[in-house]
């Protein structure tokens, strides 16, 4: 029998394993790669993590609830393109403006969130009401979402968002661009919701045993539908941020981010079986991937190494998950 202090310490390490790995990896890179240990590099890692970090929130919530959302990347691109078309000044952009000009910030944000929520609601309808498999439903949305982006833009791009929006990508707080704070704050807000509110608790329970949750009087269908809508809206937020960063949108904006997000979510400790995961862990997973990518760039290695390493890391993450489970079994 372990002493309760020792048990608590081991549990703590297991719960936050990805953070320990992140620190170890950063330390290793700082020691071995010239010029890695700089505030600017670390700020850049956080900045790079903005979009995948935001997407990962919604994906994590759905995977924790026992579902899947492959549509997030296309939803992000769609929201970015809608914002681009409405508010960018050149390309396919219509250049809509407001007086006062700063109104474009809340209005464009609301539109991006609404676009995302709409696709999320459509996913929810097929999955919850028609009882279709979420993998298939969201795969379809992944495809038609991207198709819609191309159709809306005619394959062209929208450029030059107003400076009121660009402000968020340029201005920095504590060396980190304002838009990256959106991802950090959203992560914290949803981490709180997941861990400290009945909604989050019920989401975990649905992911663990939907039958038991249903029998206990939890409105499983309603909660699931809300989560799909939330995941869509969060992907809309990611699209808004990405449009601001690139000052517009292109038809192939963000291609490939789905798999990075997936990798980060798994590395962050979310179990694909559902019912297990924490959002700060997922954010650490995102940072870990960005750190490795930065290291590869700094070493001047070809970019495709990133993909090789990220693929390998997903496998390691799943192995680690099994390993953690075994330790916990012995603890109990």
């Amino acid at each position: 029998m372990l002493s309760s202090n020792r048990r608590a310490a081991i549990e703590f390490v297991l719960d936050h394993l990805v953070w320990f790995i992140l620190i170890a990896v950063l330390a290793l890179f700082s020691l071995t790669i010239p010029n890695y240990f700089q505030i600017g590099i670390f700020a850049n890692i956080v900045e790079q993590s903005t979009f995948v970090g935001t997407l990962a929130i919604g994906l994590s919530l759905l995977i924790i609830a026992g579902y899947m959302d492959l549509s997030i990347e296309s939803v992000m691109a769609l929201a970015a393109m809608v914002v681009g078309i409405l508010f960018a000044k050149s390309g396919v952009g219509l250049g809509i403006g407001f007086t006062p000009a700063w109104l474009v910030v809340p209005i464009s944000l609301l539109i991006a969130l609404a676009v995302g929520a709409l696709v999320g609601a459509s996913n929810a309808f097929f999955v919850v009401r028609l009882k279709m498999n979420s993998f298939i439903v969201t795969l379809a949305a992944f495809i038609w979402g991207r198709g819609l982006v191309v159709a809306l833009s005619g394959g062209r791009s929208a450029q030059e968002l107003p400076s009121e929006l660009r402000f968020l990508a340029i201005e920095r707080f504590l060396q980190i661009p304002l838009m990256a704070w959106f991802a950090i704050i959203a992560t914290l807000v949803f981490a709180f919701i997941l861990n400290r509110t009945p909604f989050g608790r019920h989401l975990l329970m649905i992911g663990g045993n939907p039958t038991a949750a249903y029998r206990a009087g939890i409105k499983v269908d309603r909660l699931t539908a809300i989560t799909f809508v939330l995941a869509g809206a969060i992907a809309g937020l990611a699209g808004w941020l990405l449009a601001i960063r690139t000052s517009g949108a292109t038809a192939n904006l963000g291609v490939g981010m789905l798999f990075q997000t997936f990798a980060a979510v798994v590395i962050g400790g979310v179990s694909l079986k559902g019912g297990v995961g924490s959002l700060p862990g997922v954010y650490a997973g995102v940072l870990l991937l960005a750190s490795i990518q930065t290291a590869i760039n700094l070493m001047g290695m070809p970019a495709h190494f990133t993909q090789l390493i990220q693929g390998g890391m997903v496998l390691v993450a799943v192995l680690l998950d099994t390993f953690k489970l075994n330790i916990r079994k012995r603890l109990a």
Partner: protein
Amino acid sequence: MTTEAPLLRLENISKSFGAIQALRDISFEIGRGEVVALLGDNGAGKSTLVKIISGGLEPSSGKVVYDGAERHFTSPADGKAAGIETVYQDLSLCTNVDVVANFFMGREIVKKYFGVPVLQEKAMEDVVAKAMAAAGTKIPSLRTNVEHLSGGQRQAIELNRFVHWGGKLVLLDEPFAALGVEQTRRGLELIRRIADQGIGVVFITHIMSQAFQVADRMVVIRQGKVAGDVRRQETSPDEIVQLITGEALGGRARTADQNNGQAQHAG
């Protein structure tokens, strides 16, 4: 028999799943503080019946009169709101969360900050610790995820949960399937204690001795019908076995069933 109106009255409940008729014309009553054992062979329809009472299934026809009014429960949440607690044989625990979370599943203690409900973990843990101590259940840490606990410990959580939440009617679907001898004995005592508080108890079992230890009345279901509804003092294990299997039916069995049983026997 209780003189006041029964807690639950089922009137001609039938349920079919497509071409299969699981229940036919089921009628019986449960009084307040009464323990009714629901007996029957595998596939007789006992679990289906429990689900209909709890709200998990809706009957194809017939009436459920509960606590003085006809009810149409469409989900277990409805049943729960009306004071019906259910313990299922396949346990209703979420193994990926801790003991406290399971105990309070769907009824968490919250405090609102700026309109946002926030879980009160400490308050919930205190309640669970008290309930577990009262029942004599030892679990190393209430913050352990249920997946790391033994079958017996899981059963104990589930039983303590329904004792704590009480309600007016408790449905137990083979609650002691995973329990040892001592825990089963304690579980049976628990059932008696609950009934003594005026709560109606329906419990499904396969084990005759359990039924005879604790039940006031026994309702036997055979092929989706009530094959017998007898008081414990007026029956014997042999008679119950006959009712369950449908062989050489005793005088108390319902006539319709008798004919039916014999016809099938002959056929």
